[in-house]
Every structure is written in structure tokens, then in C-alpha cells.
């Protein structure tokens, strides 16, 4: 029996910052100091604060260690695990007061305002041990549903909760189930969309890595509700840890009889298979995803018929996203009213956001719907680093739009964001400061959609390509005001005429930056200037002859040999040779080089 648990994050973020080495060192050191019967080392999923990885939490006192290195381990074991003195220099700095007192994690700014529902078990349980999931109340909801509720009651409960699709669409989950349930067929399917492809979004990965059983349990519940006994999880092959943990979870659920035949002795059968996606963004679209599971080329098809009628293998199918499923067991256990008590208007419950970009606390945050953007950016995220001014946040990845700083008090929920032409999407939130060029951002996302367009319909295949060409023209300083009109026209054309969600939303980054940052486009076109100094073609590095001492440092640094001048005499930059790398400016000790 252990007196202390050390939870070390084994999510992708912390794994890449070296948590496996720390874990090995920890197990080694604990054995060396003879504490192996007293201290239990548990590998968990993501704690959310990926910026501070590798992270480690020591219970029962819940001390949060950040950026732990293998060489720190002996000190932690001797001082904390043996003698009970937290090593304050390694504790997450937000969790230590000025007086040196160590706070509990829930008292830090990053966690204080969060409400963890979908992420409830991430960083708390060992995802490779089904008994830990059961120990936190896991599979209770499935038991309740199978023994006490009718399928209609289950659907009603989900409907009443107000849960909407967390993958981006925002379609009411209960309604999706309700539309599928009455359809008669010899076989129905429950699918899980784990093909998380938006740049910067990683909440689904974290749920799968940290709490895979919650998804399995929810899929079984969905199967019971719509009358299906086979499920498929379509997960990206680029998520090796998630895939491995899902495989282990499915195997363990079988061993415990929580998947398979006659679950809880009720005669209900349910099984789940894994299908790995090969990395095409379009396969996150529901019809393309189902074709891909069937083993065909992942291309969308027109709807109707909707998957609820004719989906996977032409059978009635429901498809929900990972995060959506992760909410289901809690809704069953705690009731629809509890879930609906969080959030605002038609956006109920909580949503996980992946904070990235120029923000102090990069990571995963889960907050009630309707939380003001300011809370997310300033309180939880800690604002932009280095005192830079917050400019905008891009939500919903390549399908979304940007929210400018002037809307920082907007409540973040489906409807308020829709009002200003934005979407929550899958929950990616890329924060931008004054050093980000909005035209460049629009170009970045369009490059992504041009790459990922499946090519089936013309509007998307050619339309997005032409839009990108116009953006390239503008950022290289060759754009005209007519181009801007053409870009806008084309954006709406692509939006209205594409077959699937990919094309219909691809122009959104352009449309919303044009709406809020048209002046930046105009600066590129008319003044031939990039106000944020990002677009290289519009930059010019010059040497102020009054400040230049002729030390030759810049000339030696220049990779293009574009700087010339005699020793102790002012140097000059040959603009035709300059590649605008900025190396000279970084080298100059006298501040003589400026960028315009």
C-alpha cells in the first residue's frame, strides 16, 4: 500500500520534452533509496500545462513540479518523497507564493478558472489501467444506462443536456442520435472522429492519451441508444501514443467484459475497432471519414442522404468527436440539468481550448461556455509574453476566423462567435501579438487548405489556389486594389459552392481578416509596407551612417555578402542582394541598422 503517488505526464507534449527519461530516473532513484514500497509512480495523460513540461505531481500534498530534468530527480526523492520538503525551486513558479509557500494546483491562475469535465481524468489516472478509470466512477454510466434506462431515455438525457458537437460543427448531439435511432437496419454503426487535423488543436489527442476509456464507455452508451453493436474509432496514425493507449484500453475493456458480448449480463453486445488515418485533413469530414474506414479513397460525398440514414457501409451511422464523447458519461452520471447549468444560451457545458501562439501559458484549458475571451487570454493564458500587445486570436484553425483585440470581452460560445463571423471549431486558439501580420496568417491557413483540398470539387480545388496566388501577390508587394476585390469575391464563391465543410470554410480566415484588418491589406498594396514587419518582400534593412562605427561585424555576418564598406567608415546594404534575414540587425552593437 503506497503512502504517496507521483504522477508523471506521459502525454505527447511532456514526452517530447523528456518525461520518459525523468520517469526512468525516478523509478531508479526510488528503488535506490528503498522507497519502492511506499511511493507509487504513475504515468498519466496531459495536465494541460504543456509549456512547463515535463510536469509531475506529488500526492497527497499535490505539489506540481514543472520542467523537471533527470538530474533533479535525486533531490526530489530525498527531499520531498522521503523527508517531506517540497523542492521549491522546481515547483511550477505560479504555484509558489512570494513567501515560499507551495499552493495546490487548483489555486494557480492557470487552473483556478478552469472546469474540467472532458479532461476530468487527464493527468489524474493511469490511462493504461482500467481499474483506475473504474475507481473514479468509470463505466458506472454504462451500467446505469444498460440496467435502468431505455434507449429513448438516454437520447432524451443527452438532448436535455444541450451538448453540441465539439469537433467544430456544433450540431446537437442528442438530435443526431435521435435522428439515427428509429432507422431500421440489420446493422448500425457508432463512429468516433479522432482525426484531429486543425493546426494547433490537440484536445482530442489529450483525451485519448489521458482517458481513453471515457471514449469507449461513451461509444457503448451511444450504441445502446441507437441500437448499434459495432463502433469504429478513426484516429490519426500521427498520434502513436493515443493509438497505443486505445489498443490497451480496448483490450482491457474486453478482459473486464465491458466491451464484447452480454455486457453487465443485459444481453447488450458492443465492440470497437480502430482504424488509422493516413493524415489527410479532409478525412475529418464525416462522409470522407466513413469512406476511408470502408477502405476507399477519402473523399466527401454530397448530403443527403445523411449518415444517420446511410452512413458507413451504407448503414445508419452516428459520428461524434472525441471530446463530445468524453462528456457523455458525466452527463449520464450527474444528469442533464447539471451539464446544462454550465454555459450560456444554446451553448451548454464546457469546452476545451488549445492555447497556442504568442501566449505565456501554452496548453490545454477547459472552461465553461460563455467565458469572456479576456479571461482566457489574460487570466488563464497569462497574456502575450515580453510585454507585447495582444492583437487578435485565431479560432477554429483553417476553418475559422480571427477575433480582434477590440472584441476581447466577447463571451466565447457558439453563437457569440458566429455573430462576428468566427467559429469555436475544434477549439484551437492561436494568439497573435503586434508582431504577427494578418495577411501572412491568412496566407498560412490558405496554404494549408490548398494542400489539403481533396480536389473533388472545382470551387475548392481551383478557388483556394487562385486565392492563395492573390495573397502571394499582395505579400510580395505586387498586389492591386482590384486584387483585393477579386479576392473577396472569390472567397464568397468558394464558400458558397464547395461540396464539403473543408471548402465551405476555407475562405474564412481571409474573410475575417479582410473584415477586421483591411487596413493591413491596404498597407501591403498601397504603401507597399508590412506593418508587422513580417512579409520579407516588403521589408528594407538600412544602415544609419551617423550611428555606424564601421566595425564590419554586420558585413562578416551577412550570408549574402550584401553589406560593403571600409573599416571605421559607414557601411551600406546592397538592397538587390539583401535576403532580409535580419542577421545584420541582430549583430549590430550600435543600433545602427533599422527595419522598415
Amino acid at each position, binding site marked *: *500500500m*503506497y*503512502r*504517496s*503517488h507521483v*504522477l508523471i505526464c506521459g502525454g505527447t507534449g511532456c514526452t517530447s520534452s523528456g518525461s520518459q527519461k525523468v520517469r526512468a530516473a525516478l523509478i531508479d532513484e526510488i528503488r535506490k533509496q528503498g522507497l519502492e514500497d*511506499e511511493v507509487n509512480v504513475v504515468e498519466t495523460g496531459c495536465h494541460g500545462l504543456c509549456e512547463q513540461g515535463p510536469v509531475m*505531481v506529488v*500526492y*497527497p*500534498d*499535490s505539489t506540481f513540479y514543472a520542467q523537471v530534468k533527470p538530474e533533479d530527480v535525486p533531490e526530489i526523492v530525498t527531499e520531498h518523497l*522521503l*523527508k*517531506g*520538503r517540497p523542492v521549491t525551486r522546481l515547483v511550477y513558479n505560479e504555484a509558489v507564493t512570494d513567501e515560499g509557500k507551495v499552493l*495546490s*494546483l*487548483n489555486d494557480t491562475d492557470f487552473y483556478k478558472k478552469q472546469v474540467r469535465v472532458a479532461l476530468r481524468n487527464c493527468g*489524474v*489516472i493511469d490511462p493504461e489501467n482500467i*481499474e*483506475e478509470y*473504474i*475507481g*473514479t*466512477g468509470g*463505466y*458506472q454510466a454504462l*451500467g446505469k444506462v444498460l*440496467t435502468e434506462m431505455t434507449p429513448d431515455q438516454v437520447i432524451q438525457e443527452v438532448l436535455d443536456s444541450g451538448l453540441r458537437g465539439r469537433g467544430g460543427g456544433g450540431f446537437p448531439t442528442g438530435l443526431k442520435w435521435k435522428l439515427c435511432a428509429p432507422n431500421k437496419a440489420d446493422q448500425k454503426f457508432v463512429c468516433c472522429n479522432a482525426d484531429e487535423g486543425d493546426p494547433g488543436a490537440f484536445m482530442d489527442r489529450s483525451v485519448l492519451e489521458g482517458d481513453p476509456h471515457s471514449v469507449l464507455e461513451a461509444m457503448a452508451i451511444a450504441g445502446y441508444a441507437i441500437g448499434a453493436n459495432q463502433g469504429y474509432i478513426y484516429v490519426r496514425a500521427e498520434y502513436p501514443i493515443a493509438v497505443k493507449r486505445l489498443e490497451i484500453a480496448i483490450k482491457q475493456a474486453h478482459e*473486464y*467484459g*465491458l466491451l464484447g458480448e*452480454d*455486457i*453487465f*449480463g443485459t444481453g447488450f453486445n458492443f465492440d470497437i475497432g480502430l482504424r488509422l488515418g493516413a493524415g489527410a485533413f479532409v478525412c475529418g469530414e464525416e462522409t470522407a471519414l466513413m469512406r476511408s474506414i470502408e477502405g476507399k479513397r477519402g473523399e466527401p460525398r454530397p448530403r443527403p442522404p445523411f449518415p444517420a440514414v446511410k452512413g458507413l457501409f451504407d448503414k445508419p451511422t452516428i459520428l461524434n468527436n472525441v471530446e463530445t464523447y468524453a462528456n457523455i458519461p458525466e452527463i449520464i452520471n450527474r444528469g442533464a440539468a447539471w451539464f446544462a447549468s454550465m454555459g450560456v444560451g444554446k451553448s451548454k457545458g464546457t469546452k476545451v481550448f488549445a492555447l497556442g501562439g504568442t501566449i505565456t501559458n501554452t496548453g490545454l484549458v477547459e472552461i465553461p461556455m460563455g467565458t469572456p475571451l479576456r479571461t482566457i487570454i489574460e487570466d488563464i493564458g497569462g497574456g502575450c509574453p515580453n510585454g507585447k500587445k495582444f492583437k487578435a486570436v485565431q479560432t477554429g484553425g483553417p476553418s475559422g476566423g480571427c477575433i480582434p483585440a477590440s472584441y476581447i470581452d466577447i463571451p466565447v460560445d457558439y453563437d457569440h462567435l458566429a455573430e462576428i463571423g468566427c467559429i469555436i471549431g475544434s477549439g484551437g486558439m492561436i494568439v497573435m501579438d503586434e508582431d504577427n501580420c494578418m495577411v501572412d496568417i491568412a496566407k498560412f491557413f490558405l496554404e494549408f487548405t490548398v494542400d489539403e483540398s481533396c480536389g473533388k470539387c472545382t470551387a475548392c480545388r481551383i478557388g483556394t489556389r487562385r486565392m492563395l496566388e492573390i495573397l502571394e501577390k499582395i505579400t510580395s508587394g505586387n498586389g492591386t486594389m482590384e486584387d483585393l476585390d477579386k479576392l473577396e469575391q472569390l472567397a464568397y464563391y468558394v464558400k458558397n459552392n464547395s461540396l464539403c465543410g473543408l471548402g465551405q470554410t476555407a475562405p474564412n480566415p481571409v474573410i475575417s481578416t479582410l473584415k477586421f484588418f483591411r487596413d493591413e491589406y491596404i498597407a501591403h498594396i498601397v504603401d507597399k509596407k508590412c506593418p508587422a514587419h513580417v512579409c520579407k518582400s516588403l521589408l528594407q534593412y538600412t544602415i544609419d551612417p551617423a550611428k555606424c562605427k564601421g566595425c564590419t561585424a554586420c558585413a562578416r555576418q551577412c550570408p549574402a555578402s550584401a553589406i560593403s564598406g571600409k573599416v571605421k567608415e559607414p557601411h551600406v546594404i546592397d538592397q538587390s542582394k539583401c535576403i532580409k534575414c535580419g542577421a545584420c540587425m541582430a549583430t549590430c552593437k550600435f543600433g545602427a541598422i533599422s527595419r522598415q
Partner: protein
Amino acid sequence: MKSLAELQAIREKMKNTMSMRDEDASGIRVVVGMATCGIAAGARPVLNEFAKLVQEKGLSDRVKVSQTGCIGLCQYEPIVEVFEPGREKVTYIKMDAQKAAEVVERHLEAGHVVEKYTMAKSGLK
């Protein structure tokens, strides 16, 4: 899994493990002095006995056992402090595993301070 009772049994079994990771700090806190002096005087078996018994008796949802550094009264080690919300701190001195078992049973379970082992009893305050 053929019945809900089986699921409940696993949940019960895991209860102690999971409640240790509870962030809720509202219950009783048992703190064992585990500085060099405490360890030398035999604090480790005391700590382990507390940790074991609290879990065995299913008290871990309201009692947390942890260590602390030197309390400053090295000659009275092993020292155990019990913090209970709304009650005065109780300090037990010169503890051993057997005394720990008695404290768990009479103090933590039944709510009666085991006066004979307290610092107050030995004339210190």
C-alpha cells in the same frame, strides 16, 4: 463484467488509491516529521503505518497523510501533528508504529484525542 456489483467492487478497491489524488484539502491532515532527526528516531515506520491504516480502514477520503520537515523539537521525535478543520492542532510525540495504530483507531476513526501521547500531556506547549 456480468453485474454492477462487480464494477462496484473494483471501484471500492480503488477508492483509496484515487482519493489520494483528490485536490480537496478540507479533511484531516496527519503530518509526520520526516527530517533527519525524525527519520533517525524512527519516523518512517510511523509514517508508513499511518498511510497503511488510513487506506485499509477506508479513511482516505477524509484523512490525508503526508510528511513535513523538522518541527524543531528533535528530542521528542518522531512527532506527528494532526490538523483538523475547526479544532486545535494536536501534536503527538515519541511515536512508534503501535502508537500510530492507536491514534488511527481512537483519534482519526472515533474522534477522541489520545491524550497520553500528546505534547500537552508531557507538559510542553
